[in-house]
């Protein structure tokens, strides 16, 4: 028989276990430095004479500002991947905004000798294409179009998809069946064909293209959101929200939606990428906006000379890849930053 003597317990214990509980006073820097400061400035009497409830009022004012201001942004900036991604995206946005100053004039105009390879002539550091158009200028101006299309399409599809998915998931029953039918309708229609048709019928301006691409890619978002909602609706905290008497709108947007965000964010960054690509396919097919240069149209025109002048497709292609990759990095980090549990871990 093993009878561990009681005296074993009085032996010094490793303290690691005792430090684990969340409420170890060391975790509350505010109150402890307050008390320390208070007692050193006003003497022991002042610190101990303080009514505990008064101290709480004090904390009530001080804590939210020190602890919970921009926690998501802070967590985001702690992640190296997110910082790199944000840096690249910021650079691209700046270049897009400054394109008019950097490269005044129409980027579709002939600027120099055709087919200069990058580095050949330092007036055109990235070279020129078959018509003598400056590739660097094309990239800068094309960034405007590509980013506009990508971001608008993602916004449109996320807003519509989330709304439809949330309604279908939350209400279930007949609402769900109708909306699922609608989602399936969009899923089974080849979306690119739809875009081509709509763009051919209406005007092929960048704005129309962006919105139409968004309108044809919300189905993925809707499906994901619907599934997340169906799973989360059975969670006790949603029942608790109903017992407390929250309105439907509050439950959908404040209680459930924040928990359904991760797949939405990931899908959004994918939609940005695929919208940029869809726009390039449209330009390639010649139904894009003929008056605007975009990364996609640059890839499309360079494609003819893939073997003789690879850089014509490689450079805009690489920029596209880097942009999409940065978006993914930021999206990933955003998911961790939005989750209080993971946010704490990187702290």
């Amino acid at each position: 028989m093993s009878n561990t003597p009681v005296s074993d317990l009085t032996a010094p214990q490793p303290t690691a276990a005792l430090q684990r509980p969340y409420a170890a006073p060391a975790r509350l820097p505010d109150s402890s430095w307050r008390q320390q400061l208070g007692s050193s400035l006003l003497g022991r009497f002042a610190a101990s004479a303080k009514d505990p409830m008064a101290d709480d009022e004090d904390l009530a004012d001080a804590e939210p500002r020190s602890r919970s201001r921009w926690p998501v942004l802070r967590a985001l900036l702690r992640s190296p991947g997110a910082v790199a991604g944000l840096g690249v995206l910021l650079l691209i946005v700046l270049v897009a905004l400054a394109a008019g100053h950097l490269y005044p004039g129409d980027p579709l105009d002939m600027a120099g000798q055709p087919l200069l390879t990058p580095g050949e002539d330092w007036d055109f550091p990235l070279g020129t294409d078959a018509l003598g158009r400056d590739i660097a200028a094309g990239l800068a101006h094309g960034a405007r179009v590509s980013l506009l299309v990508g971001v608008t399409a993602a916004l449109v599809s996320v807003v519509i998809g989330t709304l439809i998915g949330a309604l279908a998931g939350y209400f279930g029953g007949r609402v769900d069946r109708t909306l699922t039918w609608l989602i399936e309708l969009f899923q089974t229609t080849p979306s690119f064909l739809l875009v081509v048709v709509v763009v051919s019928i209406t005007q092929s301006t960048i704005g129309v293209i962006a919105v139409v691409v968004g309108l044809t890619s919300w189905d993925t978002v809707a499906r994901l959101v619907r599934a997340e909602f169906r799973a989360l609706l059975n969670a006790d905290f949603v029942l608790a929200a109903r017992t407390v008497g929250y309105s439907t709108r509050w439950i959908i947007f404040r209680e459930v939606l924040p928990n359904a965000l991760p797949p939405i964010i990931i899908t959004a960054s994918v939609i940005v990428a695929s919208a940029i690509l869809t726009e390039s396919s449209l330009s390639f097919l010649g139904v894009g906006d003929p008056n605007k240069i975009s990364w996609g149209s640059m890839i499309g025109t360079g494609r003819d000379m893939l073997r003789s002048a690879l850089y014509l497709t490689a450079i805009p292609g690489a920029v596209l890849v880097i942009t999409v990759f940065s978006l993914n990095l930021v999206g990933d980090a955003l998911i961790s930053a939005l989750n209080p549990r993971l946010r704490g871990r990187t702290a």
Partner: protein
Amino acid sequence: MNAVANIDDQGQPLLSVSNLRVNYGDYQAVKGISFEVARGETLALVGESGCGKSTTAMAIMRLLGGRAGISGNVDFDGQNLSTVSDPVIRSLRGNEISMVFQDPMTSLNPVLTIGEQIGEVLRRHRGLSRKDARVEALKLLKKVRIPNAEGRLDDFPHNLSGGQRQRVMIAIAVACNPRLLIADEPTTALDVTVQAHILQLLKDLSEEYAMGLLLITHDLGVVGQWADRVAVMYDGLIVESGTTEAIFTAPQHPYTKGLLGASLRLDTESHYATASLPEINVRQNNSGIIEFDLNSHARYFTARDASSGTLDQPILDVRNLRTEYKTSQGPVTAVDDVSFQIRPGETLGLVGESGCGKSTLSKTILGLIKSSSGEILLNGTNIAGFDEKQLRAHRPFVQMVFQDPYGSLNPKHSVYRILDGVLKNHGVKSAQSRSQQIFDIIHRVGLPQSAVWKYPHEFSGGQRQRIGVARALILRPSLVILDEAVSSLDVSVRAQILNLLADLKQEFGLSYLFISHDLSVVKYMADRVLVMHDGKIVEEGAHDGIWKNARHDYTRKLIGSVPVPRYALAEEEAVPYSNSAWQELPVAMLLSRFAV
């Protein structure tokens, strides 16, 4: 006792664990424990979640992943399990040593029939042919007393109830006549009436095959009724071990005393109105030594009995309530013609097993599920059939505390935001007033003020349940529905929450509808008790009488199934009471590690 004789006969024990340590990096899960199990003996390893009892079992079987560092000796019948090669231990697992796990719902493969799953073990370990395995499987099913065993062979797991699935798991575990059976919380997921049968079965099998049984559990009632010897674990150490009789009649260690005091028994007269439950106070003194002491006090509430309050208007008056679910097989009546009343200041206990309709009843009262017929009079207003908008005005009067302290708090919101949202939704416009109420309620449920800025995952189970209580009470309801509110908590944490609920009841003048499957908890908390079975209220009685004079068969069966230790606890004098939330804080903090 049988077990002791066995050790003498055989000279050496079946399983002998000495100085077993398990650590994950810097964290020590098991800190050097030693124990032995003899042939035919039942040793209970008791402790609360996170104490290392399951880790110990997994370490014996060498089932822990590569991250775990294990040292010490595990000697099984002359073989050192910690040094034998992988093929050898694999041949021992399921053959000489087998295991039964807690959750019978997930431990069976849903796409194989029962017969195939038992047969697989027989074919692999005993080399039987498919045909022989089927015959043998049938014998095993009969041995574990599954009704209509022939018919069950070709059934799939989803055709079986939880108890039957656990029987199948046991059949698989004993298929190869193991010499040691490790049962890790084998009945925790099951109803009381089923639990008694499963434990009886394990005991019989252990005697029949002279099989050592290592029973891992948190339930002292189970231990007291079924174990020969007990080892009490706390924080990776065995703090006390001995025969069940010795542990129950004369516990030495304060932690054991605390556990015994905090675990409610059906055969004692403890009631919330007269005494609080002892709370185990764990603290570390200046030199790093962990000290335990007990804290309990007498209460002087005026408990309501069934006759005294009949003149008051009831807070809640449920009349002929019926709730139906639509299923593909047609409507199922979950709540069937239920009527009861709750008067101001009363705690009405509602007991019943899983599936009896008690949760549906609570959801119907809260308007989360629509009733089919009947009336729900809340302060005289019939709220049955009200829609969400109409209910809003009545929400503040009835609130609920949920069972799962993990699922019932939105993981994305801080405690402040969780509580703030409730007040905002009920028209508290001033931010200052909301903040004041939030800090006040957090203080009253015994949490530090800094807790409001934290997120749910930063709390232990007991602390989360305090937040759940705070959310329910912040609107100052007059009736709180506690649906299995303490069922998923450890014994010592449960004692704290029950004490808190009893104190808050007095403080706020609350009425409770206390729903639980655990009769001993209901006995302690309730003034009046309803017994629910198959959607109907089968019996109603005062808290002290119903246990002795149950009229309905089902009530008697239920009471008979509750494990009651064979030994009575020596009377413990109440320690003088000091109730200041500020003094309770360190207790709450330190006890927080009881819950994972």
